[in-house]
């Protein structure tokens, strides 16, 4: 697995922290780089309890997001999230495409009159739940998104909190997504979508820390 850029001591955001466009751009860029660097990690996690393509899927999305952002610099937060959402929806496919796509699309809509980071992430988490007909404790990316949304609304987010959320998926029995076909045999493995979501929020921490 990739080295974490910041450890326990690293945290971001004040309560009610506003997300600025420059941070957010940095956030998405760092996320796409982490996806690029960790294709095989994600594929391997998905090989254990899914169909082995989560890394490849997200890599396709990362490439599309980068290309879209290179083509046109987004005017505001809403535009940035919309571009990200469309690239994910149109290029990722599989389960993660519509899930990340819906999360960012809903965040794009919300960002039109809301810039509070914690609230935006909660909107994204809700989008995933709606699209995936799922909730926490089903061993999906929601088990990273929801704790992160909670942590952000309670105070600054730490890499440790992200990691804790990610690690919590290991002990869960999957009841949604492909891993659910394995029933009890899904226990003992990290959920791949939670790992990519951990990269997303690690990137957020880095982007805000570098400000």
């Amino acid at each position: 697995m990739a080295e974490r850029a910041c450890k326990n001591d690293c945290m971001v955001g004040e309560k009610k922290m506003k997300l600025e466009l420059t941070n957010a751009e940095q956030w998405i860029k760092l996320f796409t780089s982490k996806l690029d660097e960790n294709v095989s990690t994600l594929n391997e996690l998905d090989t254990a309890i899914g169909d082995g393509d989560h890394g490849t899927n997200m890599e396709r999305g990362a490439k599309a997001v980068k290309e879209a952002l290179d083509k046109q610099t987004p005017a505001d937060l809403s535009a940035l999230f919309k571009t990200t959402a469309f690239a994910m929806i149109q290029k990722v496919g599989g389960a993660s495409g519509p899930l990340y796509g819906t999360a960012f699309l809903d965040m794009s809509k919300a960002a039109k009159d809301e810039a509070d980071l914690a609230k935006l992430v909660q909107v994204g988490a809700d989008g995933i739940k709606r699209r995936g007909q799922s909730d926490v404790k089903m061993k999906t990316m929601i088990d990273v998104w929801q704790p992160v949304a909670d942590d952000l609304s309670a105070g600054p987010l730490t890499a440790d909190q992200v990691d804790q959320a990610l690690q919590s998926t290991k002990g869960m029995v999957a009841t949604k997504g492909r891993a659910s076909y394995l029933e009890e045999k899904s226990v003992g493995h990290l959920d791949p979508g939670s790992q990519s979501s951990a990269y997303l929020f690690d990137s957020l921490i880095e982007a805000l820390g570098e400000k």
Partner: protein
Amino acid sequence: MKKIINEVENIVPEMISGLVRVNHELVKQIPNTTAVVRNDDDFADSQQVGIVSGGGSGHEPLHAGFVGDGMLSAAVAGEIFTSPTPDQIYEAIKAVDHGQGVLLIVKNYSGDVMNFDMAKEMAEADDIKVKSIVVDDDISVENSEFTQGKRGVAGTVLVEKIIGAAARAGKSLDELEQLGKTVIENTKTIGIALHAATVPAVGHPGFELKDDEIEFGIGIHNERGYSIEKISKSKQLAADLVNKITKDFAKKDGKFAVLVNGMGATPLMEQFIFANDVLDQLKKQNIEVGFSKVGNMVTSLDMQGLSLTIMKVDDDWIKWLKEPVKTIAW
């Protein structure tokens, strides 16, 4: 991994290009998509409900091989083992709607269900009537309303055949939706693997089986099954699978359809031997077979293995299963 391919990321577009160029009298490609649509005049002039299916690639000839008169109107191919994206499905829906609406045949995977749902929402915004049915015939997975439920596997092709023929016969969108749901409820499949598939981007088989092992209950994306056993004779395998499936049917009267489906790397020779044993088993159980078929229909790349599908059918369904079609692979 030895495969006859070029760059891994071009596998799907190049495959679709080859398929369309070789079969240009039957199908055409929607520009800038990997969606394949019927190319015949009969369809252009028809008033039938459009039938669209699709899903991840790696299951060829499913779905593009079943586009044509009497089966699918269009098929959308995603990346290998990955649902296609909503924009592509949306293009296919638009291309086949003749004002009578469009039925989507979706295999029950979260990715497919979500992407087809998003496409449906997009098409509905264009005032196209869209319904969808979700195939979940793989009884090796426990069903539960709290989970994703059973997977959609080889039975899909029988659903596509019946729905395709019924749509050609002029059934309405609502009738087809209802028919599809009933057909799916009566369709049960179990698969076995002798050797896992190698996803090109991964480069090695999805799991390992010993030289004398066989896995029961695998899915078509290398999903692990419910047990690993020493390989036995075809007769024994047939008895095991037939028993497991027929136990799942409440009633054994009436007629049944049977599909023996090769997973990609298992020769027809073995499929026919296994089918022979399946028919023997069904005869023993006094189960009447009204339709049967053998072949590589819903594959899993280069997986070695096969699946058995049994469907409780009524006489109309048998007629629809038997009707001639003009497709690449039925």
